[in-house]
């Protein structure tokens, strides 16, 4: 009898434990996204390809802690990227090679010294990174020109009256991009996608003003074929 009681007790404890774990399981993805991409905007998020004084600070710290073996030149390149990844791995952070708020605070870097005055906090890098993520989610298997073309379509839409007028408005418009709907937009963009976003923002438009693109192999909407078909870049058809 006493053994039976013990068993029941064990079972009860187990049950409580299991339930406890289930209750604690809450998806944390939203918070992760906010942390990862620095949506609070205050300090600049550093990633492959950015340059500046803040990169120098990161490199200096990593050099002193022996994660980094390159030059402190203020350019976020392959070596800095690997050093940041090593640092994140060692410190139990999310290993993505991007210096966001959590990595920055783990390094002991406070909010970056943005210039004071009437242009404080104004910069294009938040848009640039969002566009890079969109390109990465939508077209990472495409040739370089196909990536720029996808970025150009997003930018052309911001200038069209039939679409929202901001990059975020266009990207997050419901049902507009599959990569947004299935969360692929939250993948960390690679260097190619970031460069393509920059080229698109700097005015390269290989689509000559197109507003739509679709992959004939996967497009589900019949409506899209009623658009004016203009040219094919990579696997995508572009249209107006």
């Amino acid at each position, binding site marked *: 009898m006493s053994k039976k009681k013990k*068993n029941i007790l064990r*079972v009860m404890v*187990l*049950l409580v434990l*299991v*339930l406890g774990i*289930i*209750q604690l*399981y*809450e*998806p944390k993805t939203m918070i992760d996204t906010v942390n990862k991409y620095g949506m609070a905007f205050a300090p600049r998020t550093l990633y492959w*390809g950015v*340059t*500046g004084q803040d990169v120098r600070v990161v490199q200096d710290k990593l050099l002193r802690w022996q994660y980094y073996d390159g030059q402190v030149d*203020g350019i976020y390149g392959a070596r800095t990227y690997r050093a940041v990844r090593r640092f994140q791995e060692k410190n139990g952070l999310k290993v993505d090679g991007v210096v966001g708020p959590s990595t920055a605070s783990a390094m002991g870097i406070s909010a970056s010294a943005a*210039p004071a*005055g*009437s*242009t404080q906090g*104004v*910069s294009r890098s938040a848009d640039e990174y969002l566009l890079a993520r969109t390109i990465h989610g939508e077209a990472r298997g495409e040739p*370089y*020109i196909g990536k720029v073309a996808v970025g150009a379509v997003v930018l052309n839409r911001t*200038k*069209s*009256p*039939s*679409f*929202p*007028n901001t990059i975020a*408005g266009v990207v*997050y*418009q*419901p*049902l*507009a991009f599959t990569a947004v709907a299935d969360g692929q937009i939250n993948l960390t963009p690679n260097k190619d996608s970031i*460069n393509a976003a*920059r*080229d698109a923002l*700097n*005015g*390269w*438009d*290989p689509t*000559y*003003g197109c507003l739509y693109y679709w992959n004939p192999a996967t497009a*589900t*909407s*019949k*409506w899209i074929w009623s658009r*004016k*078909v*203009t*040219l*094919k*870049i990579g696997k995508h*058809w*572009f*249209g*107006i």
Partner: protein
Amino acid sequence: MEKRRHWIAPVLIGILLVGAIAWGYNLYTINERYATALDNHYQRLFHDVKSHVENVQVGLSKALVATSKERNILLFSQIMTDANFAQDKLGQMPISHADIANTEKFLAQAADYSYFLIQKHLDGKDISPEEREALWSLQENSAMFNGELARLHDSMAESGYIYEAAAVFSKKDRNVNDKNEFQTSLTNLESHVGKTPELIYDGPFADQIINKKPEGLGNKKVSMEDAARIARDFIGGNKSTRIEAFEQGEDIDELRIPAYTFHLFQGNQKNDLPIYAGVSKKGGKLIWMANPRPIGKEDVSIKDAEKLALDYLKKHGFENMEPNYSLKYDGHILFNFAYKEDDITIYPDLIKVKVALDTGEIISFDASAYYLNHKDRKLDTPKISAEEARERLRTKFDIDSTRLALIPKGKNEILCYEFKGKYKDADFIIYINALDGKEEQILQLIHNENGTLTF
């Protein structure tokens, strides 16, 4: 012993069952919470759109009655705000773009048109009969929109979630025929709004501005073979250069600049990185080229790079180009060149040149803005002097430089004095109309280490 074993299995299954039920219930409540939160958000958007569109309609009706310019300016600024909000919020609703493209356009143009009329009133001009007509048609459209929204509102009170009503998350492959009330209503509106005549005015969302055709290309038609040769000559390829054209659709000629686009492979290897180029079908001009090759160690100074870019432009027949702004990133530097005529900087005629800082090679060239805008111009002579223009500036504005420039304004180009200077430690460029002294444009400069952005 055996008895005990009999006893363990059901208990384990029991635990698993209880665990699974608890887990499932937990997921269900979380899911319910998300669904409600999302629906609340969409409900809010829907009601906001409804009240904004109501305000637009009422505002337009009032503007048609009002007689004073002052009253109209206030009304139009309200219409502009409400139309902008309505468009923004409509774009966030879970409705496919195909169902609301024209409606969004109508709202954007209503806002844009109001802004145009505000400017007109501020210049002391009255609304013309044609513009009254246009306002009337805008008012009719917004009234119709309002009616549809009210109808939807009633039907939505019965069906549950708004995104179920919009039927966007339920089926992947939506059949055109089984549209529900939500879509039917929006599609009615779409086709109605789509039929209203184009608004003729001067603003960024006006159809004439969007559909502007290039001015600097000429009319000579060019075959694809000739275009390929033009691209190869421009890039400096040799006989072994392999050229492939991008596949074209049937409506390629409806693009703003109809063009042939090519890959050019310089070497013979299969995995060679191509250079891309676009050649216009009319006039056979190379519109743009880009060579997205990886870049090695920086070896060229910015000054040398600028000279290389200028030489490149001269070599390809672009004289009188002046560098205005540069941006250095990823081992290359991008220069913006503007055309210069009679010492006046012509900003619309813009060419971008990118120089690789490892070898000094030109890796990208883009003259699409130049060919869209360039033409033989009759430039005005300024009616006021630089001194007179300077008097119009704020007193504590420290001027660094002054020059004459032609800047785009809607479909027109206006001659201005350009004042670059500082006000309270921030950099600005201010444009004063050289004919009537009006303050036309203010740009603020935003510095970073690699270049300067103009907003």
